[in-house]
């Protein structure tokens, strides 16, 4: 007894950051918290708010494109909408949602009491709202918000900037610092805090994908920070990194940007792979097929992501050798990705499958993400890319991988762990409504975009030729339906927090992992003494 008390005392003395048992109340609890579960929840809520904000901007875009001609907004405001929609969805919705899931689940999955650097964790969350406040504040400037596209190509963001560049740059700096700190925390936690006996190849695949994603973030977010800094000095301090008059080169901007940009794409999809690799085995009641091949496939995708960046720039006039190199490397990515898709299918093969909502979202993920992957393969072919470049085909492609890919996986994860987070089962009927409405509307929203793109409708233009009118009408209807469907999710989550059927410690009979060994809702502190893994 005495020994236990002393023992606990000494542990607390050694690092008393994350282990206050007295919870503060009200706002202070959330401001000062270093608890990974609190921070995870804040990340998830923040990303949902940003998801709705960016979603409203998407609806402005779709409202304007409902009919040909200019009806609702000015072209300049339309450009601001496409730009800020992209920035918010990438940096504000998808990435923080994944960080939130990592915060909540990683320590529990590796049997650690908290993230390795709890104070840093608090900081990396709390600077995010400021970054987005700066970005969104530009709407109240006379010149308006950034209108140069989320890719901020020079000279659009330098010579031709409307004056919002500085705000944009500082917002991105802060988002980058937040991501880097979050990534460092994830790597340090995984490397140092695993329960005794949990070797690297025994880690859940969810942990592996976040581990590799965190490394990607550490490698490329500093490059993004460098790029925006160059844009800043080009715009305001007379340097000429991207200005031909002073010896610079605007095409170099694209090289540096996409050196960040392509790994960034995988930063937004690798964690999704981790989530569905958790849910599919659980609801197929089988072990994940080909665990180690999944790990190696994830690592290969991460490696390849660094040598394919110029496939975004086929039309800039590269030498033939360059075009071929980037084309073949890009196509090579289909191999490890194919390994993953086949492994998921093989996991389901002859499994005792049940179709709970997390599984529905996961299956939809596998099918729809694969469609996005195939259109990516089409875009990888240099000769045809000249036709598809900058059309709605590209828009369809990356929305299939990011919405029905990344976002659907986040929904799958949220439904899967919601009972663990809240202690209650969610309303099953509502969740089915959410899934089916989302599934139908998202395809109505994005599938016709393929045809529009192939027929030649350019992206980022507020008007279009008359022959595109019918498809655009359907796309806009799909857009509004998809947007409204997400409100079902909001209602469902709020209801689930307030109450419902009590959740057992392990509500899914096929689920595996340490997180299901603790009660539901997960206690404020878990695994103060590490579990033993054999």
């Amino acid at each position: 007894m005495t020994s236990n008390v002393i023992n606990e005392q000494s542990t607390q003395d050694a690092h008393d950051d994350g282990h206050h048992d007295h919870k503060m109340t009200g706002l202070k609890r959330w401001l000062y918290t270093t608890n990974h579960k609190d921070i995870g929840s804040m990340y998830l809520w923040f990303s949902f708010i940003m998801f709705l904000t960016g979603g409203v901007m998407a609806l402005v875009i779709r409202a304007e494109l409902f009919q040909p001609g200019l009806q609702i907004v000015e072209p300049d405001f339309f450009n601001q909408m496409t730009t800020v929609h992209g920035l918010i969805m990438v940096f504000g919705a998808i990435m923080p949602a994944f960080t939130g899931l990592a915060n909540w689940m990683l320590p529990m999955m590796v049997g650690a009491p908290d993230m390795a650097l709890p104070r840093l964790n608090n900081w990396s969350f709390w600077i995010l709202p400021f970054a987005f406040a700066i970005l969104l504040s530009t709407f109240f400037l006379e010149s308006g918000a950034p209108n140069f596209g989320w890719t901020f190509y020079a000279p659009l963001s330098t010579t031709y900037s409307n004056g919002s560049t500085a705000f944009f740059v500082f917002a991105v700096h802060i988002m980058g610092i937040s991501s880097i700190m979050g990534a460092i925390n994830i790597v340090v936690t995984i490397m140092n805090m695993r329960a005794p006996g949990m070797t690297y190849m025994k880690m859940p695949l969810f942990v592996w994908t976040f581990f590799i994603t965190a490394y990607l973030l550490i490698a490329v977010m500093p490059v993004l920070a460098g790029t925006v800094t160059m844009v800043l000095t080009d715009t305001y301090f007379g340097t000429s990194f991207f200005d031909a008059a002073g010896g610079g080169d605007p095409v170099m901007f694209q090289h540096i940007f996409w050196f960040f940009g392509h790994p960034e794409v995988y930063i937004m999809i690798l964690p999704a792979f981790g989530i569905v690799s958790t849910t599919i085995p659980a609801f197929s009641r089988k072990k994940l097929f080909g665990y180690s091949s999944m790990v190696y496939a994830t690592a290969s995708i991460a490696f390849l992501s660094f040598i394919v960046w110029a496939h975004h720039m086929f039309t800039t006039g590269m030498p033939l050798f360059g075009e071929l190199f980037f084309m073949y490397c890009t196509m090579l990515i289909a191999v490890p990705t194919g390994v993953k898709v086949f492994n998921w299918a093989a996991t389901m093969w002859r499994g005792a499958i049940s179709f709970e909502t997390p599984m529905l979202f996961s299956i939809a993920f596998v099918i729809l993400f694969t469609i996005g992957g195939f259109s990516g393969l089409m875009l990888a072919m240099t000769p045809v890319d000249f036709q598809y470049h900058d059309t709605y085909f590209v828009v369809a492609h990356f929305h299939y991988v990011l919405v029905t890919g990344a976002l659907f996986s986040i929904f799958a994860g949220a439904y899967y762990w919601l009972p663990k987070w809240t202690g209650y089962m969610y309303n099953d009927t509502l969740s089915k409504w959410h899934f089916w409405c989302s599934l139908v509307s998202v395809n109505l929203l994005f599938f016709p975009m393929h045809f529009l793109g192939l027929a030649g409708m350019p992206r980022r233009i507020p008007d279009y030729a008359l022959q595109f009118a019918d498809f655009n009408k359907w796309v806009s209807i799909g857009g509004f339906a998809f947007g409204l469907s997400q409100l079902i999710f909001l209602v469902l989550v709020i209801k689930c927090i307030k109450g419902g059927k009590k959740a057992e410690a392990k509500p899914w009979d096929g689920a595996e992992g340490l997180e299901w060994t603790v009660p539901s809702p997960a206690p404020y502190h878990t695994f103060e003494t590490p579990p033993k893994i054999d």
Partner: protein
Amino acid sequence: MTNGADKKTLSTQTQQQAADASVKKTVKKLMLMVFAMFGFGFAMVPLYDVFCDITGLNGKTSNVAARYNATSIDRERTITVQFLTRTAKGIPWQFEPMINEVKVHPGERKVVKFYAKNQSANAIVGQAVPSVSPGQAAIYFQKIECFCFNNQPLNASEDVEMGLQFYVDLDLPEDVSTITLSYTLYDITSAVDS
């Protein structure tokens, strides 16, 4: 009992310290990676220049005068060299080639003239920046003398004829039969003044 507890405390503490130390070590390594990659972002700027110099990527041509060292003139091949000019936003100059295209044999020297006129009421310093298309021809397009090597000051309403002497290398790839040389003229008055 007490003794045992102490021992246990001690061992937990050492374990804790060891864990903290390894956390610190990992953090340091990762921070190093962050700074290295931030540096790499900037290192890409000179790397890109070197890469373009070697490969002629993006149609960048040399900024220094080439020596004429062709050993012969290849009269079998005729290359069309086209000239394009444009003025960057904000420079009120008239700027155009005095001949739109010339036919040259590889190894043959050629002189062409460009015309520029300052149409404003102020003295302006202009700088022309060349670019060659297709990009792979850039390293075979040799400028012996070019107005783009220096800036060009012009007083109000002053005009000037500017010369370019060039030749095309003998080992220009077989599939290139037309080379387009494009000049963009920039206003660099403020940069020159400061």
